[in-house]
């Protein structure tokens, strides 16, 4: 930035405004390893007992946290994988290929992008039931994928749009067909897009709550969001320190991913597309 403006007033203002989040977050971490007496804000004892849930279910009848975590990884990972692999071809077709209904498809993607998704859940439930996927992780993965797809396709199209046409033209002049051009020349250019989209869908699926709750209530396909919500909603044994520990456990992958990949994540809107 230029030397013409002072920055400390901005820093100060931002710091003050960020206080709630910082406090919430700081206590999220602190409370997992301490006990705090009610009404006081100063932790008075260091303890690891809030992390016991890692070894034994906090209450009988609750699933094993590791199984749930594995589910969550499966859910988020597969969703991300499918979203990326489907978007990567569709985005290219929409951005670059002559085909019938191209305009219509693109308009469709944009429209879906703005769709009241969860409100269709009853019908979605029926679709799953017809395909026998209700109450399975696969079902939720597919639905989540479908909901993420418009966004994914839109983002990927944006990334493809920024690849210079000349590269493709050069490829064609060099004798490659469109498929080869896509695979060998264009695809490597949109890696940042793939990474960003993959991470984004992963995070989004990792956080998803309503879909698993409604579409896979069975314990076998429980994920961390529903696990945690059930824990919190269980109104007769609330234990904020426990919630926070589970919460932190649940949030750790997200934060790790952010810390490691934040540059890649920021790319998500670097595709030259308005959204």
């Amino acid at each position: 930035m230029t030397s013409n403006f002072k920055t400390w007033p901005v820093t100060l203002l931002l710091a003050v405004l960020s206080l709630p989040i910082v406090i919430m977050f700081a206590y999220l971490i602190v409370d997992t390893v301490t006990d705090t007496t009610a009404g006081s804000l100063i932790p008075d004892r260091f303890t690891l007992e809030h992390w016991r849930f890692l070894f034994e279910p906090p209450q009988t009848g609750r699933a094993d946290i590791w199984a749930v975590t594995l589910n969550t990884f499966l859910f988020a990972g597969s969703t991300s994988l499918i979203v990326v692999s489907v978007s990567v071809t569709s985005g290219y077709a929409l951005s670059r290929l002559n085909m019938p209904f191209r305009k219509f498809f693109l308009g469709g993607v944009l429209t879906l992008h703005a769709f009241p998704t969860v409100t269709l859940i009853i019908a979605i439930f029926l679709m799953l039931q017809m395909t026998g996927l209700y109450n399975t992780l696969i079902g939720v993965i597919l639905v989540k994928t479908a909901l993420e797809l418009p966004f994914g396709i839109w983002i990927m199209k944006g990334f493809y749009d920024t690849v210079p046409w000349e590269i493709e033209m050069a490829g064609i002049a060099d004798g490659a067909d469109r498929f080869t051009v896509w695979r060998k020349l264009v695809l490597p250019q949109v890696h940042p897009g793939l990474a960003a989209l993959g991470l984004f869908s992963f995070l989004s699926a990792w956080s998803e709550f309503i879909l698993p709750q409604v579409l896979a209530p069975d314990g076998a396909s429980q994920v961390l969001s529903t696990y945690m919500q059930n824990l919190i909603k269980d109104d007769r044994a609330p234990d904020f320190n426990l919630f926070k520990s589970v919460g932190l456990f649940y949030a750790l992958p997200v934060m790790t991913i952010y810390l490691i990949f934040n540059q890649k994540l920021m790319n998500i809107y670097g595709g030259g597309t308005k959204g």
Partner: protein
Amino acid sequence: MRRAHLLGLGFMAPALLIVCLFFLAPVIMTAVFSFTNMSSGTGISGGAYEVTEKTVRRLPEHGFPEAKAEMLAQDVYRIDPAGLTALGAGYGKALADEVGKSLSGKTFNGRRDLERALKKMKARPRSIREIKVAADLFKRSVLNTRYETEDAFVAAITDLDLKLDTSERALLSKVAYTGWTWTTENYELIATLPSTLRAAANTLTYVGFTLAFNVGFGLFLALATFYLPGAQAATFRAIWILPRILPPVIYIMMWKWLTWDTGFISSFLSNFDVTPRNWMLHSDINAWVSIVLINGFVGASLGMILFSSALRAIPSSMLYASEVDGASRLQQIWYIILPQLRWPILFTTAYQTLSLLTSFDYIYLSTDGGPGSSTEVWALYTFHTALNNYGGALQYGLGAALALVLVVIGIAASLVYLRLFNFDKLVAKPRIEQ
């Protein structure tokens, strides 16, 4: 069709398949459901025909002869030859003979009496279940029996010899049907229910305030971090990205921890003699402030990212130019930056309007529409109606109609925004003509 067309369609195929399965089909189904009275009582997959006490009570109201209704209400078990033959076939001649001998011609009202009688038989089946099935062979009424098809039901009531005429028979079938039926009532309900009206008003409040906060605060964050040196900017961005990337369940839990009676604010303020209260649910104003902040922080995260990347796209020489032209920071923002962010702002506004209109996760997890229904927005109302209420009275039909209203608004709005964003420019013709 040229080869590139095939390639294009091939590339689109997986997406088309998924979209058809989980978007298109559900929309169509939702549209269909919205014209039914489907609920957890009627089931989704279809109904059966069953005459129950309730049916019988209802029948006269529909003009069914009271006497015949009365007869339907009789749960008659008659030991007649037909029944005995069936019993013999199913449970052996010995039992049939024994029953025929001791009970022939007798009539029981209700199965339990007959069961008791059967239990006295020497040749009775071993399991209680079989006794019950055996008893049912003598059932000479349709009360409390489910018939999966109308034909079976009609056959059964015909057997009863009630001398029903066709219209009575049709009426009986209609009243006895337990499944859903076609109706436009849902839309009438939507138009007349006070609670839908309130949900609509709440939605307006919610979208309006949250949107203003999202865009305004997002813009502020983007601008503020834009003017900061790299490390500071990265720190604040990392902080403000948290609301967006933290799973909602955790994020809301943190808010609850902050706002509950025993939470941070209350504890903190109690040092200043402020009585603890639930800052999230104390009054509808509190609830609205919480909702707007909770969703607003999330939206502002997104806004911050979008606006930041848009800011980066402004050539720095333009900012330099304005500075040497004498502009102060506010003048620079007002005259140079904001006008150039017009599109991103418009886009964010449009996009978030739609997202807010249809999202309810955060409200569901935080206030769940309360206190009262003061923060129950349309989408949440839909969810509650269709899938989530204390009594378990899930009204799929009404819920579908409510959802469809949102679908229609969503499509209309996105069409508007396709226009706004100069759709034709987005679909520039491919430059390779193969």
